[in-house]
């Protein structure tokens, strides 16, 4: 007889009461170790919890919408012992976190095939016409049709009728709540669907349907929420980085000996700290009631990293306390982990400000979208050599375009211009970093 094991939620970092947004297995399913069992969503990341054992799922103790913490029993599994010996649990049961924070800047990249774990879980075709969506929701056919018309997933609606039955009013109330602003909590792609009517594009030519990855769908919701709820303004400026670049080139070899790639981004992060110290409102968050500002005395800065899975914003901690080389080394390590899909949820948390650089691709400027609860984001385009008049004649100078998108509820135009100007000055003469 196979031993029956309880699978509990492992340590997932300092998360508590994390919402289950997807249950990926059902009783009777055979799973291997590392097969994703459920998907959790915190404010920033989705995490798939992989199975620590191989075996057959017996019963599932959680459902979509439950909030669970470390130690919660997820399901029971009849373990399949390999060759008689019971398989040892895989030591690393850490959840694999994926994204997802926001920044507008995502260079177009060909979408590669998604790894199976992240690919859309398509329900298997059913022999009879059983509805999969919210299939156990306690609601009558008329309410189910009403929910379909409004694009509401009944799995997300709590019922107020006898024994939790979902009534028509519950669906209406859910819709009203979802429409009334930032309290919206439906995962991307669920809840309210977009108002764009479906169009049969095949009337115009050949088409192909490609499902969006989970990462992209969640990023889409964060981006949309930020874009539609925060009054964005973008301030543009330019920094003369001729000297900075000369210094960087001079130090590159030395850094390379320590396996450090000394990039412009490391300098940008250090310079940003100087500007944040002088403009504390840029290093803040609006309180949820909108009546106060939380000013931060720490300097954790996120960097937008484009990966095959979608966009990630890993956070470099305490940039103010670290040297240029250390910052450069951490940028390098976190980007690599993000690209490998191995970033941990805690590494995506706690950012004060985000830097998104498209310098590697090109362009002269863009308007990044703020990554809430932050209040500003710096976009950086490609530096270019340009003739600059120094009062006597034109001299070739390396000019870096800066684009600061800011939350106008928190930051005034004058302050934003001042912040950007200061940043440009610091970059022009990096000795400011020492001050």
């Amino acid at each position: 007889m196979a031993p029956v094991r309880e699978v509990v939620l492992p340590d997932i970092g300092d998360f508590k009461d994390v919402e289950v947004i997807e249950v990926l297995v059902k009783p009777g399913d055979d799973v291997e170790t590392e097969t994703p069992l459920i998907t959790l969503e915190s404010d920033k990341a989705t995490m798939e919890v992989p199975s620590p054992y191989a075996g057959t799922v017996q019963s599932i103790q959680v459902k979509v919408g439950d909030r669970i913490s470390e130690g919660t029993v997820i399901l029971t599994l009849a373990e399949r012992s390999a060759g008689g010996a019971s398989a040892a649990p895989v030591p690393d049961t850490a959840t694999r976190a994926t994204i997802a924070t926001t920044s507008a800047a995502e260079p177009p990249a060909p979408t590669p095939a998604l790894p199976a774990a992240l690919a859309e879980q398509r329900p298997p075709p059913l022999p009879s016409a059983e509805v999969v969506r919210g299939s156990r929701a306690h609601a009558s056919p008329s309410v189910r049709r009403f929910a379909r018309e409004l694009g509401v997933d009944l799995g997300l609606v709590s019922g107020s009728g006898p024994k939790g039955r979902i009534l028509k009013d519950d669906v209406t109330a859910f819709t009203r709540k979802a429409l009334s602003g930032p309290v919206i909590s439906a995962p991307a792609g669920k809840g309210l669907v977009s108002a764009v009517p479906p169009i049969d594009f095949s009337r115009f030519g050949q088409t192909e349907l490609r499902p969006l990855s989970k990462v992209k769908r969640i990023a889409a919701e964060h981006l949309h929420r930020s874009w539609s709820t925060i009054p964005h303004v973008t301030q543009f400026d330019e920094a003369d980085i001729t000297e900075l670049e000369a210094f960087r080139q001079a130090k590159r070899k030395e850094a390379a000996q320590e396996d450090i790639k000394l990039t412009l981004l490391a300098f940008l992060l250090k310079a940003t700290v100087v500007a944040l110290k002088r403009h504390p409102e840029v290093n803040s968050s609006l309180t949820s009631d909108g009546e106060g500002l939380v000013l931060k005395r720490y300097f954790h800065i996120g960097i937008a990293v484009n990966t095959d899975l979608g966009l990630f914003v890993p956070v470099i901690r305490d940039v103010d306390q670290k040297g240029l080389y250390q910052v450069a080394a951490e940028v390098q390590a976190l980007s690599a982990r993000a690209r490998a899909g191995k970033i941990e949820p805690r590494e995506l948390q706690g950012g004060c400000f985000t830097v998104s650089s498209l310098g590697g691709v090109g362009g002269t400027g863009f308007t990044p979208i703020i990554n809430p609860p932050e209040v500003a984001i710096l976009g950086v385009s490609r530096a270019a050599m340009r003739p600059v008049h120094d009062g006597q004649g034109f001299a070739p100078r390396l000019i870096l375009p800066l684009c600061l998108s800011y939350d106008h509820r928190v930051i005034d135009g004058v302050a934003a211009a001042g912040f950007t100007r200061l940043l440009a000055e610091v970059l022009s003469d990096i000795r400011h970093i020492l001050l």
Partner: protein
Amino acid sequence: MSAVEKTEVAVIGAGPGGYACAFRAADLGKKTVLIERYPDLGGVCLNVGCIPSKALLHVARLIDEIRAFKQHGIDLGTPRIETEPLRSWTEGVVRRLTGGLKTLARQRRVTVLHGTATFRSPHELHVTGAPGDQPQGEHLVSFEHAVIAAGSQATSIPGLPEDPRILDSTAALRLASIPKRLLVIGGGVIGLEMACLYDALGSEITVVELTDRLLAGCDPDIVKPLERRLRERYAGVHLATRVLAVEAHMSDTHISDKDSGELSARLEGQAGPVTQGFDAVLCAVGRRPNGHRLGAELAGVSVNEAGYIPIDAQMRTNVPHIFAIGDIARPPLLAHKAAHEGRVAAEVIAGHKSGFEGRVVPSVAYTDPEIAWVGLTETEAVAQGVRYGKGVFPWAANGRSLSYNRSEGLTKLLFDESDHRLLGMAACGPNAGDLIAEGTLAIEMGCDARDIALTIHPHPTLSETVGQAAEVFEGTVTDLYLPRR
């Protein structure tokens, strides 16, 4: 090429799914063309399926009741059956319904084209009228949306010769003659319904079924009273038996064995092969979807090996403006499922946010006794490891059933063990098919055992057994004595 018909919606097939779809589409303001290859609307269901068979099965029940009440003081003599008036009465029932459909189509300004449709391209259908058919000729129908509702056809088994005495269900319903000895191949719904009909009309019936169960989709405890009755009345009910071959002996052939009839069938069961003689053979071994008969590839619509056209929740095929519904899309092959799917397709085409809302589709075998089931069966529950509880109420304790002179029926309800919600229902007995609607509604509404037990059912009716089965599960039943659990 004659006429070119331009339309918003073209529906292929005027069966219960197709006409429901066409009518709904027209009601939603779409210009609709309904294409049907037979002269009458209604498809298999109305013309050669559900409706004529139910008319004749009513007659069968009447005959059986007349016979049964002989021993209770009502002797109407031996029924003398004349097939001609019976057939024309049945045809009258069918005509009334198909004529009604014609009127409904006209009132909605749905254009009905008679002919066989095949795809020419993703936006064109070619319709060929039957030769000698009205002056319809050939049509090219160009459409914005098409709905494939072309249904299914009876399948056969290898080893059956071409012979007028070898019938499919359509031929059997024509009542060309009443054979003395009838072999029914297939112990599913259609085979058993036809067996019941010809048994009542006086044929000696032998049923052969390849699997080890009659009505394979239903739980054995529900089928048992039917099986017992069939075994009492029929010459043979052979399970796990294969028909190896049927040989037709023409009347001028020399027949050596005086026991062999005009058709001899070689059957192979567990006891080894035997040869038996019959006067007619009915083949009812299932139906096959017509997916490969439409030139679907010219429209880019994918059809799977079995002939089904895969669809999504909105009934769309892989080509987004072409839909498929009913038998041709997916099992179960039932008219009431097709009609729901047809209306969903029409609504989606009209831009509504529609979908198939039904969680369960009920099934009924109009045998005597009737068998009906919906939702989860106990067999499935065990196989899937579902934790369930059940309530069974025997009709021997139901006054209405006894007043019908019948006591073998039962009603069974399956409940989720944790929240007591109804998962499935099955019933056996006269009019079980009408009772199943309550279970279907209860599942759709998410009723639990107490909801059903506390709902007042009228007395004396068969429907009481539904409430009482829930009471059995709840432990509150007073019409039975159940030892304490």
